[in-house]
């Protein structure tokens, strides 16, 4: 398993905390003993635009961006963005995504429409996919802002990383006063 490079593509909307989630993810993978690379774009993309972060791990990783059509897991923070980036997923890949919908400007103006039945369409194309009501679980964990940690919990089920490494990474990256609710959120996501 270790010599094969695994690819996780994180997608969502600027401002959703995707970059922090990919920080935690790459920290976990480094602690797990892998070579890790991650790539993303800052600047203009932050302003409510479509945001993508590539995370790759294995014994030796070259390109920081995932070769086209080679993503093993598409990790989505918003439904339309998860749908948009499906072409980058392997044919036998998996989607772990939030069911949250954020309408883009064209839809807000009534000029375009948000695609319908996205979860069903994703599951039809990639049967092993999971669409999570992360917002509800975050509320259950005690803070709406732990929604990304819930999603990381759901993602962790699909990866061969010991739970201690996840806890260690959150210890390293999450401020102490938010740690407990984030650990709760992670556990809820992992059970979901």
């Amino acid at each position: 398993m270790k010599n094969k490079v695994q690819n996780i593509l994180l997608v969502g909307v600027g401002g959703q905390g995707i970059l922090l989630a990919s920080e935690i993810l790459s920290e976990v993978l480094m602690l797990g003993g892998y070579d890790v690379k991650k790539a993303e774009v800052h600047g203009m993309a932050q302003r409510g635009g479509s945001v993508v972060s590539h995370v790759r791990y294995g014994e030796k990783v070259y390109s920081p961006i995932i070769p086209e059509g080679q993503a093993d897991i598409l990790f989505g923070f918003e439904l339309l963005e998860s749908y948009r980036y499906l072409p980058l997923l392997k044919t036998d890949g998996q989607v772990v995504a939030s069911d949250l919908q954020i309408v883009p400007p064209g839809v807000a103006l009534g000029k375009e429409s948000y695609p319908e039945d996205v979860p069903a369409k994703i599951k039809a194309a990639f049967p092993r996919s999971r669409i999570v009501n992360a917002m509800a679980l975050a509320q259950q964990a005690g803070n709406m802002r732990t929604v990304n940690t819930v999603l990381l919990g759901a993602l962790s089920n699909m990866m061969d990383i010991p739970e201690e490494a996840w806890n260690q990474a959150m210890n390293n990256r999450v401020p102490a006063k938010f740690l407990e609710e984030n650990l709760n959120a992670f556990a809820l996501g992992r059970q979901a």
Partner: protein
Amino acid sequence: MDKTILSGNEAFARGAFEAGVKVASAYPGTPSTEILENIAHHYPSIDSSWAPNEKVSLEVTIGASFGGARALCTMKHVGVNVAADPLFTLSYTGVRGGLVLIVADDPELHSSQNEQDSRHYARFAKVPMFEPSDSEEARAFTRLAFEASEQFDTPVMVRSTTRISHSKSIVYPQTPVEGLPEPSLARDPAKLVMLPGNARKRHYFVEERLAKMAEWSCSQSFNRIEEGQGEVGVITAGVAYQYAKEVLPEAHVLKLGLVHPLPKQLIREFAARCKTLYVIEELDPFIEEQVRAMGIEVHGKDLLSVCGELSPGRVAAGLFKEEIPQGFTPTETLPQRPPNMCPGCPHRGVFYQLNRLKAYVTGDIGCYTLGFMPPLSAMDTCVCMGASIGNATGISKVLTPEDRKKVVAVIGDSTFLHTGINGLIDMVYNGSTATVIILDNSTTGMTGRQDHPGTGYSLKGDPSYQVDLEGLCRSVGVKHVYSIDPYGLDETRDLIKREMERPEVSVIITRRACMLHKRDLIQRKPPLFVDADKCTACKACLKLGCPAIKWNPAAGTKGQAEIDKLICVGCEVCMQVCKFGAFGVCDEK
């Protein structure tokens, strides 16, 4: 510390720290910005600061070097255009303390106005340039660049790209160097005063230096041959090396760490053993053309695009003429999600009114360039940092008096202090009639909210003198200077309209802090709501293009506007647009 995971920019900062840098200066620019932020945050022993523009930052760094200290300057690719003047003569003077200029290019224009390839600057200015291919090399090459700078008496450029600066990979930090000489005053006018008589002699030195470095680099480990199998060879550098290894795992690879000057002897030896030779490089055929000029046959831009960034798929598609593989593709057309001004952005109302006033808007570089996007659609030009004001002067010169009134320049506070002020001086000096709006949001917004001389705080967050924008404009001769809160829509419109009519230069400063501001300058208010009984479906509020206002076609009989309570910050601009009083303030918190 054995290993850690760092972005290229974090690693550049680490490398500078390990090299014993004493002074670091920059103007923020994506994708280079975080280098100085990391230095300020993690390495307080370094004197780090924001300069008003890249030219000043390089000049500050040059001064530190002349004083005998190691100094670092960082910028984005277009920043080198601004700093080119000192750079080209710095090449002649050389250095005392090591001087390194890190320049971050942006292939694919993720956040830039052009795609220029900075390697040409290294060749043009006759200075060496290193190009790392991951974060560990970003650290190591920065350190090495300082040594080479002093060894060869030259400024050294280090080229990054978005995929180096903003990618993370594993880094092995080393202990910082020790025993560097103390800075001191040492007069050496023959070397540092570039009058013709001195500079003529230095030009010979520069040419000899380049020849020496080309020879030296043939035997250095940063230029290395990785033995493969078969007869295919690849010459590559930077992040393109990673794509080459991904796509041609069997090939022989000549990986260049120094992209200028090229190790010609090493290239000849490498080429001799390969039957097919590729140069895989992003943007221009910089290495390729020089290899070709050596009489060596290579493939490069005949197969790979000059435009945009590379990727493993694009390299494979070029080399093997294969389609870029795609998995499942949705059949329907998906709505785009372009970047947008944030809810509560103080620029929104200004552009809304400029649109209604049918102004011809010369624009500039910053978040407010998004005023170009529909539905605001209120920007007609955008060239480079500071250009809006000169552009307004020029276009006014050729228009009829009636059309001339429509010309309005818009520029951010940070951009105005970068290079806009010079344009304003010209405007007054040469009798232009245009109107200038300084969109003062008290920060450098687009690059991630950095301080500048107009904010009253330094890079390290210490209080500093705050430039008085009104006073500055008056001092260059602008008689009509006004400031206004852009949240007041009618007042903003009336003022802009009045000043557009005035046949003299006037400056309007629209002042309200960025909604993402780091300090407590902003007061978010509870989200608004739409009263369904009052909304008449006129859609006037949608013309603001606020992400917090959504059209719900299913509501009411003709559809209705709704507020997204999660992101509305209660700026009440929409409330002023609605003629029917449908927007209200929520009681709930």
